[in-house]
């Protein structure tokens, strides 16, 4: 591929625009979705059907005073929200939106995405510690142990996908799934992989809900117990950046799930593949994230860790062994 400056600039602007629009309007989607599940209306006053609401919220957040309490670690306190946004936007550089739309198709893009996810985890830890607030420290500690525990089954299930596709390049993985939904990794009708792939999908989906700190796994920002968790001391745009970082993490998680398991930009019947199918898939997955959040209560921290260490890891290890055995046999 050419490496002209125009191409780089176009992708830069495009990804920033995509990230910005998603971060803002996903808030609108969440509020409307939650409202309809609860049989209320949600935002409806600001603009048609409340679509200007995210702009109003952004304006409000920017006009508030950025309070830095006394006694916090000055540099880390200011850096933590920015650090929460960086991995999410950077991850979008390697995601293949379509056969020809993708900023950089690297050979090790899966590894890059997981490395960047760990940086997001550090942002939570720094934000909680630098606040100097006891609630924040408790929530940061919970967040770190949760993220650590759920990265392991996530990696194990992604290894099964890599074994089947034969490469760590996200674009290659998506290319091997073209041609209709029976080729998608979640179904994988050849070589008997259909026995194990749906388990991988479910485990990966649960882990991505836990990695992005969404309910029912939102121990780090448990609203009713710890006021606002690690975000307690942040006002104005610091809080805004954490929220946007969380929504962008959800988008990246959905993109990853769609690429690894649902065939990327492929149409279910193999007719007209294109970027629009990719977008439809990620928005259906994002709606599922919202749906799950507003249905279940929160788990308890030790139950959460039990779920990961005692249920998800044994299942994903067994899954990996069976997949490897099937590849060897067939």
């Amino acid at each position, binding site marked *: 591929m050419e490496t002209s400056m125009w191409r780089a600039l176009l992708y830069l602007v495009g990804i920033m625009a995509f990230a910005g629009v998603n971060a803002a309007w996903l808030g609108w989607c969440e509020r409307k979705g939650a409202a309809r599940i*609860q049989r209320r209306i949600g935002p409806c006053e600001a603009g048609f059907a409340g679509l200007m609401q995210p702009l109003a919220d952004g304006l409000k957040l920017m006009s508030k005073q950025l309070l830095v309490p006394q006694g916090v670690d000055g540099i880390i306190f200011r850096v933590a929200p920015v650090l929460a946004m960086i991995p999410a936007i950077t991850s979008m550089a390697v995601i293949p939106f379509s056969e020809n739309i993708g900023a950089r198709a690297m050979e090790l893009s899966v590894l890059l995405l997981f490395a960047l996810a760990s940086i997001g985890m550090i942002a939570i830890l720094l934000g909680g510690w630098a606040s100097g607030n006891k609630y924040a420290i*408790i929530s940061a500690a919970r967040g770190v142990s949760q993220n650590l525990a759920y990265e392991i089954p996530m990696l194990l299930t992604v290894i099964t996908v890599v074994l089947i596709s034969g490469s760590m390049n996200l674009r290659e993985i998506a290319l091997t799934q073209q041609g209709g939904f029976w080729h998608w990794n979640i179904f994988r009708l050849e070589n008997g992989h259909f026995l194990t792939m749906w388990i991988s999908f479910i485990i990966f989906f649960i882990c991505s809900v836990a990695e992005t700190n969404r*309910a029912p796994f939102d121990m780090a920002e*448990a609203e*009713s*117990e710890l006021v606002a968790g690690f975000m307690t001391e942040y006002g104005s745009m610091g809080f805004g950046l954490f929220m946007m970082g969380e929504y962008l993490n959800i988008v990246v998680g959905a993109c990853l799930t769609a690429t690894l398991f649902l065939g990327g930009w492929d149409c279910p019947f193999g007719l007209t593949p294109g970027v629009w199918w990719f977008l439809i898939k990620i928005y259906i997955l994002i709606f599922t994230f919202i749906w799950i959040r507003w249905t279940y*209560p929160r788990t*308890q921290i030790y139950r959460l860790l039990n779920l990961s260490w005692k249920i998800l890891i044994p299942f994903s290890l067994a899954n990996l062994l069976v997949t490897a055995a099937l590849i060897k046999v067939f």
Partner: protein
Amino acid sequence: MTVPVHLRQDETFVLNLGPQHPATHGVLRVKLTMDGEYVVKAEPVLGYIHRMHEKMAEEGTFVQFFPNTARMDYLHALAFNHGWALVVEKAAGIEVPERAEYIRVITVELNRIASHLLWWAAFLLDLGGFTPLLYAFDDREKIIDLLERITGSRLTYSYMRFGGVYNDIDDEFIAGTRDFIKRLRGRMPRLYHDLVTHNIILIKRIKDIGLVSAEQCRRYGATGPVARGSGINYDIRKNEPYSVYPEFDFEVPVFNEGDSMARYMVRMHEMEQSMRIIEQALDKLPGGPVMGKAPKVLKPEAGYYYSAVETARGSLGHRLVCDGGKNPYKLKLRSPTFCNLSLFGEVAEGMLLADALAFMGSLDLVIPEIDR
């Protein structure tokens, strides 16, 4: 979950579950000494909303205390109205006509269902499930609309008087109540039990949390669903009956496990039993006046009087001292939530913070009732 017993001073920190906190319902301050996530010592600090209701009783006449009764426990205000009416009727020897007694029972039981619905909503909100709040409030809104038809108020009712009730009920109220009971019975299995009670996340969250033994309940004087969840079969409506409760056929749910799940199930079953009582009362409702003969200026004989009613939170006692004048000499209220809260200090030791909050939610606290 056990916690090491001997901790140095610098190994623990003090966390204030401050007067302003989303999970303490009202202004309650709990000083928690914590070791990481474990609670080593819990000390509730009260008094942030003490408004001297008992002193206000001494300043005005007997009937002027009715607005105060509703403002103490605003979730089950009609039971507090009922309790005050009962103790003064006992002191002054006032007779209440039968229709008024039936209306009192119907409205008190409707209010009990509303209180339990709000408890359910707030408990789940503490645990992180935001949707059941809206479903419960949909039903609660119907109850409040019904009660507004006859009492004129939505939350702080000043509906009962000595000798009966203020207004009579009409046919629309009766039809509306029957519709409401049918509607709630239809929604209960799906929206309340399938969505929440059988949910594995909720079960794991409240089963075996906050074990309260029957002996602890006796020591602290806990009553109501807290005691009935630990195996103590005591309900004032059955054990020391008042008003027309002996004429109704209802059960008192008792569970023996003593954990938060048991208290949860006691309240859910109590809602069903309240609906049974209301149906029977509507079927048997007699005609007649709704206000008995009561003197305009009430001067009961001097003496000590006590009477107790069963509110949604436990046994509420009124101890009235009269000296023959037209003001009460002294009134003391035995608040059920005060005794329930005192369990918290002992039981919460060694628990995780989130478990301690789940336990507090299952105790159903209304702080203005504790502080009066």
